[in-house]
């Protein structure tokens, strides 16, 4: 899978993983304190933030595996920084990455429109909920509460991770820093095509 990857793309994912690992850990703390007041549902509405790196990296690099690898790398870096959630973060990172990856794979890694990004966020939400159902013992909770938690997480995945990821990446694209990555090539091609159509 890694043969077709340039080293600069791998390192790009890794430095993004560092930035977002810090953001993620910050939100774990926020979530933990909230969770004391309103229970595990506290994590649900901010859950999308934890999927964002896979969507940003897939959107920029546009290669199979970008979503899975970036989320896994962010999880490894979170573990390297050290925290009380610990090694199992790597497992949940892989699960969340796979969820996003599934959405990109379903579109054949060809489309990166806003709705595909939302779908990737939803994919992560669904996969991570199934995993949480097992690991965090959601099976012991009332089904109606579970439905509420699940729909909050899916919404958060679509809005925070999907739309938020696009919002951040587009802003980054505008700075010109992404020249040399698939995202600039594809968008400039689009512009050319439009230009030809008009002219």
């Amino acid at each position, binding site marked *: 899978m*890694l043969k077709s990857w340039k*080293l*600069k793309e791998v390192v790009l994912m890794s430095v993004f993983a560092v930035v977002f690992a810090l953001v993620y850990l910050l939100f774990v703390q926020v979530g933990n304190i909230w969770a004391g007041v309103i229970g595990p549902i506290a994590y649900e509405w901010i859950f999308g933030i934890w999927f964002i790196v896979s969507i940003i990296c897939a959107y920029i690099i546009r290669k199979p595996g970008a979503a899975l690898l970036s989320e896994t790398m962010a999880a490894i870096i979170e573990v390297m920084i050290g925290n009380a*959630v*610990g090694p199992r973060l790597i497992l949940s990172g892989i699960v969340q990455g796979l969820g996003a990856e599934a959405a990109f794979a379903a579109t054949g890694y060809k489309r990166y429109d806003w709705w595909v990004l939302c779908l990737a966020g939803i994919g992560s939400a669904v996969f991570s909920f199934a995993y949480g159902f097992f690991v965090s013992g959601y099976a012991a909770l009332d089904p109606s509460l579970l439905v509420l938690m699940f729909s909050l997480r899916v919404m958060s995945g679509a809005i925070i991770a999907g739309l938020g990821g696009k919002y951040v990446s587009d802003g980054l694209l505008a700075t010109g*820093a992404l020249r040399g990555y698939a995202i600039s090539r594809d968008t400039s091609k689009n512009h050319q095509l439009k230009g030809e159509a008009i002219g």
Partner: protein
Amino acid sequence: MSSRTWLHDMNPALKFILVIVSMLTLAWFFNPWTPFLVFVGVILIQLSFSRINWKVWSLFMIPIGFSALGYLWTTVLFAADTSGNVIWVWRGIEVTDQQWHTALSLAFRVFAFSSLSLLFALTTNPVKFVMSLMQQLRLSPKLAYGVMVGYQFLPVVKEEFIQIRHAHRLRGIGQEKYAWQRLLSMRRILIPLLASAVRRAERSAFAMEARGLTGERRSIYYEPLHIGGRDWLLAIILIFVLIASSVAGFLLS
């Protein structure tokens, strides 16, 4: 007291797998005793085989305590299984012993998970962990060295974050009143941070390739890591704690 360094010297990949296996095993139990005994067992292992700073350990545990509390009362109120005898009633909410047990179990599970995580986090050198993932678990060198570069940038990212904040403050932005405004303003900080991260990634990727990193697996490492007899001994002790608490949990409930 030489045994007090064992956990610190243990092979990180093996330790990682053990912690993951313990957590996945715990996920099957809904009685309060198993996670509680694992929690105690892990603390005992750490007391005898590691030399960690317990003050740091407690600081990590405080927020965990909060989230465990959340789990406790959510499960009391919203348990799926409401059979058993009612043990107390408060303003029309009836709590059965079954509900109470499940709630305690989930709360203790949070503690058991955290103690396992801290067992790993406080005794493992992060760089050795990635090296061990590459050498024992065959993580691709491209990824492993990529992660290492990112990790080395951690202090730089922190510094840059502070600089960007200062720059914003000088120009009088960044004094939002509401939480949602602050959440949206994250983009103002993230984008310059990421833009410079992209440039740095490119520079270091060039530098790494210039120094001969091909991403191929190598046969000789500068710092080879092995799994020795002592590692297996610790593994057996941890697995014993796991099995013993599973059996005890089964018998006690």
